[in-house]
């Protein structure tokens, strides 16, 4: 994909009272935004190939009330040869983690208190043309993307809906995701069995295209426990041995299944101070469902395709809570899903779904 960025972006930080804190240039990791547009093209143009001849450009969507140079979003505009043009909206929350990083020096300087809320605005300015005669650094090797089309099965979405129940809030921007009751039960059991330490697995499955309406949807078929991980009460480490074990298990299944996401647990009950009263434990932030900054790193590093999902099971005093996350417009969000019944089962029980926070540190504080 041939990417163009005719604008540069600058972030303005402000205190909640509107007083200025400063400006920082935006050095964003744009890949999730490009990938969101790439996947939207796959959804809209079934026969189109998004390859080297596809042109993608990031353009500002000017702020409705503040106007230029402030933006409310960016648009990734994709021109797919032989298919047409599409635009993928990337919200300003895309810049949230950058704002967090930019605030750290302000806390060190005392301009912001630790934990103090602040606002950020993003502005866009045309990039100056590249100066002629600037020496380009010689690359020691050339790389060229090898097209690896995702295998897509043709199926009837209605057949899946007929055997499933919805869990969590559904958003029409998301592709439908179907999780078998069996896979959820296995994740639940792994969470219970691992007790006070975290556990994880890789989710595998198939991408389908609805024969009737043409929409893509994702079916999880199984989970492969992440062996050779190093797990503690608060983290699980994935390394080369983990990935190799998953690949070997996948090859043995020979079902042409794809990596579609991952699961991990948070043993929240074990994190809480055992001396706290039951009432205090219920209110403890550690008992809530949250997708940590480290979880976001795993998702970005390994599960960066727009259709990749992350299942989190939080073991709370009130029982197991489930939350599913995926990409939407280049940003990791919580999303709804559908639970597929076991064979012959018409109305599978709905798993408890918790409302989660993402990437914030609020839930990562040590229990008082």
């Amino acid at each position, binding site marked *: 994909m041939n990417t163009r960025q005719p604008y540069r972006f600058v972030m303005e930080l402000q205190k909640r009272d509107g007083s200025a804190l400063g400006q920082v240039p935006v050095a964003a990791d744009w890949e999730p935004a490009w990938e969101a547009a790439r996947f939207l093209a796959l959804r809209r143009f079934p026969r189109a190939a998004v390859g080297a001849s596809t042109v993608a450009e990031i353009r500002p969507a000017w702020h409705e009330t503040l106007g230029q140079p402030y933006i409310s979003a960016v648009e990734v505009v994709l021109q797919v040869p032989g298919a047409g043009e599409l635009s993928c909206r990337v919200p300003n929350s895309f810049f949230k983690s950058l704002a967090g*990083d930019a605030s750290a020096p302000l806390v060190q300087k005392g301009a912001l208190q630790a934990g103090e809320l602040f606002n950020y605005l993003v502005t866009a300015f045309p990039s100056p043309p590249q100066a002629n005669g600037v020496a380009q650094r010689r690359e020691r*090797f050339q790389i060229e993307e090898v097209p690896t089309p995702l295998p897509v099965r043709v199926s009837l979405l209605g057949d899946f809906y007929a055997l499933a129940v919805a869990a969590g809030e559904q958003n029409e921007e998301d592709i439908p995701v179907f999780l078998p009751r069996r896979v959820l039960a296995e994740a639940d059991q792994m969470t219970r069995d691992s007790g006070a330490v975290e556990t994880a697995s890789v989710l595998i499955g198939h991408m389908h295209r609805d024969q009737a309406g043409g929409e893509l949807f994702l079916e999880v078929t199984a989970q492969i426990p992440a062996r050779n991980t190093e797990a503690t009460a608060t983290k699980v480490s994935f*390394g080369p041995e983990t990935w190799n074990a998953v690949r070997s298990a996948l090859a043995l299944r020979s079902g042409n299944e794809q990596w579609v996401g991952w699961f991990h647990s948070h043993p929240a009950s074990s994190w809480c101070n055992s001396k706290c009263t039951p009432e205090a434990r219920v209110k403890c932030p550690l008992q809530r469902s949250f997708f940590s900054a480290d979880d976001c790193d795993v998702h*970005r590093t390994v599960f960066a395709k727009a259709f990749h999902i992350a299942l989190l099971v939080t073991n709370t005093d009130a029982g197991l809570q489930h939350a599913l996350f995926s990409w939407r417009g280049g940003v990791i969000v919580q999303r709804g899903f559908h639970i597929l019944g076991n064979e012959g089962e018409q109305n599978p029980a709905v798993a408890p779904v918790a409302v989660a926070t993402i990437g914030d540190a609020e839930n990562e*504080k040590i229990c008082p």
Partner: protein
Amino acid sequence: MTDEPKLDILASDVTGQTVVNVGIDASDREMSVGELLDGLVPRMKLPRLGNGGRTLTYHARLEREGRHLHATEVVGEALQPKDRIMIQPTIEAGGNRR
């Protein structure tokens, strides 16, 4: 310049869903696997830094031999044309309690 042809290999991420062809000039075969990885990771759109600016670690697995390449190995000695390497991160998920 040498008359040796370019060394072409394939590199993929762990999911196998992103694959690139890597063409290494004959004159650059003396670079180390670590240098290759340093250049390859960002160009495969893999992040170098995680939250808080911590550096992420990657390894290269040589499929032909079923082993991980050491960062100090020389590309021209370890790799052959049409070899396939897999770029694998070591990374942590979890509650991240401070």
